[in-house]
C-alpha cells in the first residue's frame, strides 16, 4: 500500500511516480561505529533496505587458512530468517573478492580480516547495499585500502526502461536485474552480477548509469567521513 507523508519533504514512492523515479537513487543514510565490539561497524540504509556490517581485523587467523604474504579475507552474510544458503554464498564470494581487490592485504600477512553482514531488512538492491555497508565498515575500522567501492543495482523493466536502485516490488516485475560494483579510482566495473536476459546496448547503458550514480555515493562517503571527523582538530 502506498502512503504519502509530508514530513520534511521526504516521501515514499508511489506507483504514479515510477516514471520520474526510475533515474532516482532512493534516500540513503548510514551510521558508523555503532557497535562496540567490532573494530569497525556501519549500517547502510537505502530506502527500506538496511544492512548492518561489522569488521574485525587484522586479527588472528587459523593456521589452515593463513596465507604467508597477505591477509585472509572472510565474508559472512547472515540472512534474517533461516540459515545461510547457496544464494548467500554467491553474494559472499562477490563481496569478498571486491574487498580483496580494494584492501592492501600485503601490509598484514598471516592475519585475517572478517566482514560480517547482517540483513536487517530487504527491500530490493540487497547486494549493492551489502557492498556499500562493507565499504563504510572497512573505512570505519581504519583498514588501508587502495580505492573505495560502491554498489549500484539497475533493473530493466519489461518495457525496456532502466530503473536504478529498485525496490523489491520493482525487482520482482523486472525483466533483468544487474548489480555493479564501481571503484572510486577509475570508475570502472569491479563486480558484475546479473540475472535475466538483456541486450548488449542495455548492458553498456546500465554500466554508464551506474558510473554516474556511483559518483553521488562516493560524495556521500566523503561527506559522512568529513562530518565524522569534523570535531577533531
Amino acid at each position, binding site marked *: 500500500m502506498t502512503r504519502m507523508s509530508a514530513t520534511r519533504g521526504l516521501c515514499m514512492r508511489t506507483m504514479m511516480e515510477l516514471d520520474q523515479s526510475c533515474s532516482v537513487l532512493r534516500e540513503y543514510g548510514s551510521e558508523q561505529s555503532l557497535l562496540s565490539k567490532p573494530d569497525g561497524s556501519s549500517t547502510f540504509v537505502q530506502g527500506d533496505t538496511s544492512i548492518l556490517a561489522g569488521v574485525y581485523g587484522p586479527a588472528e587467523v587459523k593456521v589452515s587458512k593463513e596465507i604467508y604474504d597477505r591477509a585472509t579475507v572472510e565474508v559472512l552474510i547472515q540472512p534474517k530468517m533461516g540459515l545461510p544458503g*547457496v*544464494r548467500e*554464498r*554467491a553474494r*559472499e*564470494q*562477490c*563481496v*569478498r*573478492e*571486491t574487498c*580483496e*581487490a580494494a584492501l592492501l592485504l600485503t601490509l598484514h600477512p598471516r592475519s585475517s580480516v572478517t566482514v560480517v553482514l547482517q540483513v536487517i531488512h530487504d527491500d530490493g538492491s540487497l547486494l549493492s547495499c551489502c557492498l556499500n555497508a562493507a565499504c563504510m565498515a572497512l573505512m570505519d575500522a581504519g583498514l588501508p585500502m587502495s580505492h573505495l567501492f560502491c554498489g549500484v543495482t539497475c533493473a530493466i523493466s519489461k518495457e525496456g526502461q532502466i530503473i536504478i536502485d529498485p525496490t523489491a516490488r520493482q525487482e520482482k516485475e523486472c525483466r*533483468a536485474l*544487474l548489480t555493479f*560494483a*564501481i*571503484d572510486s*579510482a*577509475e570508475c*570502472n*566495473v*569491479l*563486480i*558484475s*552480477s*546479473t*540475472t*535475466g*536476459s*538483456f*541486450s*548488449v546496448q542495455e*548492458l*553498456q547503458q546500465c*554500466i*554508464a548509469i551506474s558510473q554516474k550514480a556511483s559518483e553521488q555515493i562516493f560524495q556521500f562517503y566523503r561527506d559522512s567521513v568529513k562530518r565524522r571527523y569534523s570535531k577533531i582538530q
Partner: protein
Amino acid sequence: MGVVLNYGINSYISIVVLYFQSHRNTYADVVITKHIITAGKEQAAPQSAGWETALAPLTGAEDARVTSLRHCSLHAALPNIMAAGFKTAEPLEYHRSFLKENCRPDGRELGEFRPTTLNISSISTADGSALVKIGNTTVICGIKAELTMPPSDAPNKGYIVPNVDLPPLCSSRFRPGPPGEQAQSASQFIADVIESSDLINLEELCIEKSKLCWVLYCDIMCLDYDGNLLDACIIALLAALRNAQLPEATINKETDLAEVDIQKKRHLKINRHPVGSSFAVFDDSIIIVDPTAEEESLSTALLTVVTDEEDRLCAVHKPGGTSLSGEKLQHCINRAITRNKEISKLVDKVFESMKTAK
C-alpha cells in the same frame, strides 16, 4: 632475483636465470640453457657474445660475467627441467613472459579456446546425460526426473534443481566434506543462468496443477579441474537437457495416484541455447580467454559472459577482482558471441549424428 628472457616467436624457449648475489659484488652466474626447436629443426644457438650484450642492458648489471657456456647444453631434458623450475619459482613472471609475445604457455593465442569435446547419452541410467571436455577440464552432467508436488507459490510450474559438485577427485585443492564456496557459488550461478535465459518452459513440467509436476535434478560433476569450470557446466547442462527424455505421466482420476508410461517418451523443448565464455584478466590490462587452472590462480580478475543465440546476454558474471572498463567488457562480449556460434554448431552436430544413427 630472477629475470626471464623469452626469445622469438617460432623458436622456443631460452630461459635465462640470473642470480645476483649482492649488488656490491656484481657476480652474476648466468646459466643459460637454450633449446631452439622449429618444427623439428635445430638451429645453432646464437653466439654467446650476442647474448651478453643483449643481456647487459636488461639486467642492468655492471659486469655480468657469463659463465654459462659450460652449462649450455642441447639436451632435450634440461630445458624442460629449467622451465619447470622457473615456473615453480616465479609463476607470474613465467606467464608474463609469454603474454608479452601474445601467446600462452600451452601455445594458444590470447583469444583461443581449448579444443572442446562433447559426448551425450553416456549414462544409461539417467534420463539425460552429457560429458564435456574443454582442454583437460572434464565435466559430466546427469539429469534425473522425479515426480513431486509443485511448490505452493507456483502451482502450475515444475522446477529444476542444479547442483555442481567438485569432488576431491578433480583437483587437490578440493577437500572431502560439505561443498565448498566455489561449488556452491557455481550451483547458484547455474541456477541463475537457467532462470535468466528461460531455458525451459517450467509450465511444461507441470502435469496437473497443484498436484503433480516433474522436478529435474541436474547433477553436474567435475571429473578433472583445469580451469574454466562454468563454461563446461553450462554446455554440459544444455546438452544433457536436450538429450533428456521424460516419460508420459498422468493422474489416474479414480485412485488419485500418478501413472507413468515408460514406453512413451518425449524430449524437452529447449527455448534458448545459452553458452558461456570465461575470461581472465592479467595485470589489469591483458585479457585471456578460457584460462587454465594456473592462469586462473594468477589472474587478477575472472569474468564469465553467457550469451544466447539471439546475441542477448543472459549473465555477465564478474565476482570481483580488479576493475574493467566498458570497452574491455565489450571486447569480451564480442568474443563470447562468436563462441556461442561455435558451440551451437557443435551441439547441433552431435544431436544430428544421434538422429541419423537411429
